């Protein structure tokens, strides 16, 4: 039996099923909340903190993608405090990696770049870490450039949940956290990898891409995920 919750988002009175998140409820009513690690068809992990919202009665900001709606909740998705934090999150992401758009394969098709434009980010206030990550091109067909990884973990989830291989994982803590394949081996040596390429398709930046891929090539398409998710829910591959 469905339970309905009534809440307010940005002054708008909304009814939503008790099982949905604030992000889903907002989207249903055309209220835009910026996201980065969230991708429809994948489970949510609240990794990027861009969808933070204010909830009355809570001092802490809450990530909309993993917070369920509650009765009488009063949510604000835009405020100067949120703008400030969102921009700060973006600036920190930029300062942590080496996001040189002009030479990146994802230029003009990058979700991080789009969000930075939308947030009016014209410079980064923090010192760049100038990471000394390596670029791993040991896989026959694919490349991971750790300088451009923002640890959204989309690749980890699509690989584990959709492909079922679970090649990717995140190792380390804090600013030493980084993407690893299998047991922190080179990607080319990761035996669990099926070379399906789904991780490339979901990567929001230019961290994962096909070898030989240049910026003028057609950019990633994530439609496949919606197709797979729909087919799965209808169990279409069994009957049709």
């Amino acid at each position, binding site marked *: 039996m469905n339970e309905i919750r009534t809440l307010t988002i940005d002054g708008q009175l909304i009814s939503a099923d008790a099982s949905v998140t604030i992000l889903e409820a907002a989207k249903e009513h055309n209220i835009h909340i910026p996201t980065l690690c969230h991708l429809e068809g994948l489970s949510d992990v609240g990794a990027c903190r861009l969808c933070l919202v204010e909830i009355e009665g809570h001092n802490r900001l809450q990530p909309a993608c993993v917070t369920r709606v509650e009765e009488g909740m009063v949510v604000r998705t835009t405020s100067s405090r949120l703008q400030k934090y969102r921009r700060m999150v973006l600036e920190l992401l930029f300062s942590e990696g080496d996001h040189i758009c*002009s*030479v990146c394969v994802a230029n003009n098709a990058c979700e991080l770049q789009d969000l930075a434009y939308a947030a009016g980010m014209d410079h980064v206030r923090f010192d760049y870490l100038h990471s000394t990550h390596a*670029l791993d091109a040991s896989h*026959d067909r694919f*490349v991971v450039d750790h300088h451009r990884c923002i640890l959204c973990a989309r690749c980890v989830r699509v690989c584990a949940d959709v492909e079922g291989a679970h090649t990717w994982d995140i190792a380390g803590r804090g600013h030493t956290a980084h993407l690893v394949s299998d047991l922190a081996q080179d990607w*080319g040596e990761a035996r669990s990898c099926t070379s399906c390429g789904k991780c490339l398709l979901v990567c929001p930046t230019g961290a994962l891409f096909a*070898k*030989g891929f*240049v910026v003028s090539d057609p950019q990633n398409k994530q439609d496949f995920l919606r197709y797979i998710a729909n087919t799965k829910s209808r169990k279409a591959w069994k009957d049709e």
Partner: protein
Amino acid sequence: MAERRREILIDPVSRVEGHARISILFDERGAVSDARLHVTEYRGFEHFCRGRLVWEMPRLTSRICGVCPVSHSVTSARAGDDILAVAVPRTAEQLRRVLILAQWVQSHALSFFHLSSPDLLLGRETRAAERDFFAVMRDNAEFARRGIRLRKWGQDVIARIAGRRIHSDYAIPGGVARPLPERDRDIILDGLPEAHNTMRQALDIMKALLETRDGESEMAGNFPSLFMGLVGADGGLEYYDGHLRIMDAAGNILADGVDPRGYRDIIAEDTEPWSYLTFPYYAPLGRDAGMYRVGPLARLNVCAHTGSPKSDHELAEFRQRGGGRGPEHHSLLYHLARLIEVLFALERIEELLIDPETLRTDTLRSRAFSNRTQGIGVTEAPRGTLFHNYSAGSDGVITHVDLLIATAQNNLAMNRSIRQIAAHCIPRADTDVDERILNRIEAGIRSYDPCFSCSTHALGRMPMQIEFRTEEGRVLGRFSRTPR
């Protein structure tokens, strides 16, 4: 008694690309003992491109320069072709060729009209503050307008083919990114008659100038040197493919048919503590006798012909200047050579664009992974022969980069030029050195159209020395690193 003159500094050198200064040194008797061109900026591309993928290199290296990004990206793509070991489709090669030629047009136009015409057209007595392109515009509006439009046309050709004027994503290892639409081809061709007219006029002006400045020409950097450039299989002027030819001052061909891949066998580099720019020379002859020049003057000296009627006619006339006895040595003739090359570029662009092969849309790129561990790309950039030399792992990750830039190859000759001009203009210790004399020394540099921002990349090879001096000039200490 006035204090003895020890050093004159020209800082910065103006109307060139990049940053440099000139110092003129005097001996005990007050005569010019040496003149040095110090290139004071450092770029470091050879270092930070390591660890990147070969497919990214054209885009990375095009950022070396905003004037000749096409040269770097195409040369880099050619080094990439070599690493992938693929044959580039003919359409892609022809489009790359048009790009290089358009780059010649816009860069040579910039050098001649915007940067050097103030030296050539305005009287020698003009003050520094008035010696600029705006003064040329005031005195000779039509000439200036035509020059600006010629450069604009060259840039427009690049933009129509590559998508944008600078730093495009167009040249990629294995080919090019997009076909050229017929409509854009037609617009480019429509601009050719005006460009030819402009060149006709510029050539007439330059030749007249050379007549009137005959006496002076003996001191504006006129000395024997070797010359190097690419030539085609028949010895004709080449800019994209072909082999290296080295000619000595008397016109003897010292080396011919040199595979550009073996350039390190014939070119060695030296360094000096006072400049980031290396000093390449023809290795078999050593640094002093091996000084060689590249660029328009060298290319016209080493080639047998241009292979296009109008420019071949001009080349024949050019060769008669020295009585047809051998290569031209005079650096001032770089300007004339540049104009003849623009003419050549216009003729060749037309030939290439009317070929239906250039408009094909089906074969633009050969795809492959990394198949070789070394790749060398060579083209003739506007300022001379440009080498990109990469080593890569089997995964396509670059492990070593060696860039040999045209401006560096002219370094010994540029230093010789300014020394010659300085010695001529400042004959005695008590010569009154004013800004006009200093500008003539700078103009000597400008004839080479150097691009300093392009040319300083080598890390570890630079023994740049830092001096700590008191206000009076007393040296307190020197700091330097040993060259590799």
